[in-house]
């Protein structure tokens, strides 16, 4: 595994993003914001929870960079930020080269097995294409 190749900063960012997303209310808030900016009061409406409780969720989302809260207007509307979601895309993409690499080795290993036909040593030339029923 190439876990150790990634920087700690990246990992910490991703931990923060995943932690923020691992909550039903926060995902619902993001879902609502995907339709356009909204105030904290508007975001709180569908939930049976207090404004401070909703504000807490908003701070978590803001901390993960998933949303931004305006500073100028009195109502400070929240809006969605797509950057962190792209980082998650990159997180999944990090696994692709690891798997590609593994499957190249699996290919080689299977090649040796079929060529050897059970022989213990794997250094004989491959003869997969001319493998016949010589048993």
């Amino acid at each position: 595994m190439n876990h150790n190749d990634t920087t700690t900063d990246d990992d910490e960012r991703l931990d923060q993003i995943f932690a923020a997303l691992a909550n039903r209310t926060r995902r619902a808030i993001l879902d609502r914001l995907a339709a356009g900016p909204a105030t904290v009061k508007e975001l709180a409406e569908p939930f049976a929870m207090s404004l401070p409780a909703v504000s807490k969720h908003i701070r978590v989302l803001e901390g993960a960079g998933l949303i931004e809260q305006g500073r100028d207007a009195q109502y400070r509307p929240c809006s969605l930020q797509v950057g962190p979601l792209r980082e998650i895309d990159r997180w999944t993409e990090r696994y692709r080269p690891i798997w590609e690499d593994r499957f190249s080795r699996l290919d080689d290993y299977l090649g040796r097995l079929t060529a050897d036909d059970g022989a213990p040593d794997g250094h004989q030339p491959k003869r997969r294409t001319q493998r016949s029923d010589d048993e």
Partner: protein
Amino acid sequence: MSEDAVVIERTFDAPIEMVWQAWTDGEHFAKWYGPQGFTIPVANMDAQVGGSRHICMASPDGSMKMWFTGEYRTVDATSLLVYTEAMSDEDGNVLSPADMGMPDDHPMITEVTVQLTADGDGKTRMVMTHAGIPADSPGASGWAMAFDKLTAHLAAA
């Protein structure tokens, strides 16, 4: 936005039974799974539904060891294999969110799905899917769906 899983298709010049064995038999699995130069000193794989897996990867000089644990969800020889994977300690305990510096109570678990089809001429086609799912979240699949929905929204925006 792209998918939230890695999907890789590959055709191997080997019979399907052999590819299945390479995935489900620890002795064979250890021969190819580790990164270049790494060894797999431990590959305990009880490949049956509900069976556990415990894998150790050691760096080339043996100084660093990483442990992984998981459970087999689907074992349908020789066509479909589904198992979970999470980083763990030597005893197979999943690393807690605190160990990983996460404030939430949802350890990160991933799920690997391997589909095999015999392709004639002794070849085997494989489709491997590796998906990330935060375990124990209220419906891990619901999480994935919510994420899909969100990304669809974003793509349309």
